[in-house]
């Protein structure tokens, strides 16, 4: 059995604001083994980024409240002191962010910014050595002429190249866990696939595991081993990648699947969308979080379903009261948009 790297137990992240308590993450559990790719999927505001940032301790602040555990190799990251976390950040757990245009500091060269991350965790390394390593990393992520490009500034890189540089920076200290928070959202479609392939290749090379956060199920389809769908700060469905795509149990997952443009299906009038907006994280709805937007909601949905295994497939969990038979009947129609008016 592969080494267990990360174990998140009952994680809750709440922020006190002037308008009230924002329940950004409200009970999330998952585990990540070495070499595994976990996809976390959900709309904006579903708590996926907050979960990721909390793992690295980047959501800490006077107004933030945490509950639960984030165990990395058995140590609870939520309880570590700031200095202890610093030695983990960028070293054992590294992160790539959404917008490579703003995630690099415009006033330092790309090389300097990678070197900075290397030196932060290798006191004894000489600057020249770190720079050689930076060039090597840039070569590894497919930047041509890396010895010359290390001295370029971010504005001299294209968007795709900047994201490659961000990946190089994240891998600089050979992390065990790589968290990619919407790494392709700000990029052209043609570049998106390249970046995903790059992450997939490098995770094997570096023997890391990956948490890939996205709102686009299409992005994780290729590389995720397991997918976790989040809605309003909770996990609403979790399972291995194949069952999530071929036997999705949660109407919210159906909606996400229906909103992927597909070339292999006859063209419908317009792209299907999930009606309505995610609930306010201050005033959560009663019962199932998705109930107000769910076309199949019924009386029982005023009571919140637990995240549990309801199908034969072990490890495939969901939060939906519908019977397995009803789901099979309703699913195809919902995914293909015929029921969207319901």
């Amino acid at each position, binding site marked *: 059995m592969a080494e267990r790297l990360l174990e998140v137990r009952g994680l809750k992240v709440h922020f006190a604001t002037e308008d009230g308590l924002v329940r950004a993450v409200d009970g999330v559990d998952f585990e990540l083994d070495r070499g595994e790719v976990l996809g976390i999927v959900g709309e904006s505001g579903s708590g996926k980024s907050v979960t990721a940032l909390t793992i690295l301790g980047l959501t800490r602040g006077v107004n933030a409240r945490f509950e639960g555990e984030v165990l990395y190799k058995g140590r609870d990251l939520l309880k570590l002191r700031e200095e202890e976390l610093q030695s983990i950040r*960028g070293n054992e757990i590294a992160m790539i962010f959404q917008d490579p245009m703003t995630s690099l500091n415009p006033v330092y060269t790309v090389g300097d910014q990678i070197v900075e*991350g290397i030196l*932060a965790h290798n006191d004894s390394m000489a600057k020249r050595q770190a720079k050689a390593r930076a060039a090597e990393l840039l070569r590894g992520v497919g930047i041509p002429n890396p010895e010359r490009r290390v001295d370029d500034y971010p504005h001299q890189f294209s968007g795709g190249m900047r994201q490659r540089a961000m990946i190089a920076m994240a891998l600089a200290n050979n992390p065990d866990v790589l968290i990619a928070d919407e790494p392709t959202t700000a990029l052209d479609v043609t570049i998106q696939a390249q970046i995903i392939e790059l992450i997939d290749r490098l995770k094997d090379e570096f023997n890391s595991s990956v948490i890939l956060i996205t709102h686009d199920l299409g992005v994780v389809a290729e590389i995720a081993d397991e997918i976790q769908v989040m809605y309003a700060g909770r996990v609403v469905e979790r399972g291995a990648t194949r069952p999530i795509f071929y036997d999705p149990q949660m109407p919210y997952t159906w909606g996400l699947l229906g909103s992927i443009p597909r070339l292999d299906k006859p063209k419908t009038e317009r792209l299907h969308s999930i009606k309505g907006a995610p609930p306010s994280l201050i005033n959560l709805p009663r019962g199932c979080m998705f109930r107000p937007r769910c076309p199949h909601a019924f009386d029982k949905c005023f009571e919140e379903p637990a995240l549990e295994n309801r199908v034969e497939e072990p490890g495939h969990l969901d939060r939906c009261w519908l019977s397995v038979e009803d789901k099979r009947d309703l699913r195809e129609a919902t995914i293909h948009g015929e029921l969207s008016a319901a």
Partner: protein
Amino acid sequence: MAAFIVRRAIGAVIVLFFVSVITFLIFIVVPGGDPAERMAGKNATDENIANIRKTWGFDQPVYMQYAKMMQKVFTGDLISYSTQQNVTQEIKRGLPATFSLAIGAAIIWLSFGVLVGVISAVTAGRWSDRTITILALVGISMPVFWLGILARYYLGPEKLGLFPDGQYVPLTQNPIEWFYHLILPWFVLAVLFIGFYGRVLRSNILDSINEDYVRTARAKGLSPRAVLRRHVLRNSLIPIVTLFALDFAGVLGGGAILTETVFDLNGVGQFAARSVRNLDLPPIMAVTLLGAFFIVTFNALVDFFYAYLDPRIRPS
């Protein structure tokens, strides 16, 4: 590089030309500005006045008068109407005091301004930030002439006797006395700028602290201090450079009129103030051009320095 310097030099000449024309024209239209009448005194005869007009060239066409004056500015032969002293000599006499005041005060206001801004931003919302904010607003609102007089009265020989009573002692004559005499003027002049810079820097820092690249820096595992110094402060200080260069240029060019006057430093600013009171065009013209020269020069320096600070605007 050479093209940049040439372009800025041409620009500077144009700016200085317009500044001089405007200064000259204001003087022509201002009531009671006729220098001949002023020079002739209260009980002068018409003949007397006509005589002065002739000898000083006030009877010539305006553009001729302007050309003559400009010529004298550059040859250093400008003579004051009211004191008949050589203006260039007077300005040279005032420059050491003005430069001493400007440089010392600039060092104080820049270092304290940055310190105050950083402390206030880092502790934003806490009592230290609130206290600093109130003090900064008090500092900005306090008129220099009032603060200067209070400082001179209470800290000077009149009350506590901690500091000498104004006046400038040349550095070459006695460095210790020079320093001792300038401490009060430096701080009095710096107070306003400290408050202002602190406020500007505080908001710059609070803006850049939310930048994505700051989050990246934290995710890399840098210490909070390294993140603040290398990523937040480095970028927040860029706008401060512009402010500083222009404020410093203004004070160098005799802009600290009130401070110089309150502490009787006899610098260029005080000289300018005296000349304005006497509607004495030649020194006003010279000091105005001097100030404009410093502003234009420092503006060019800022642009040059900006390219160093921000690689995005560097010509490739």
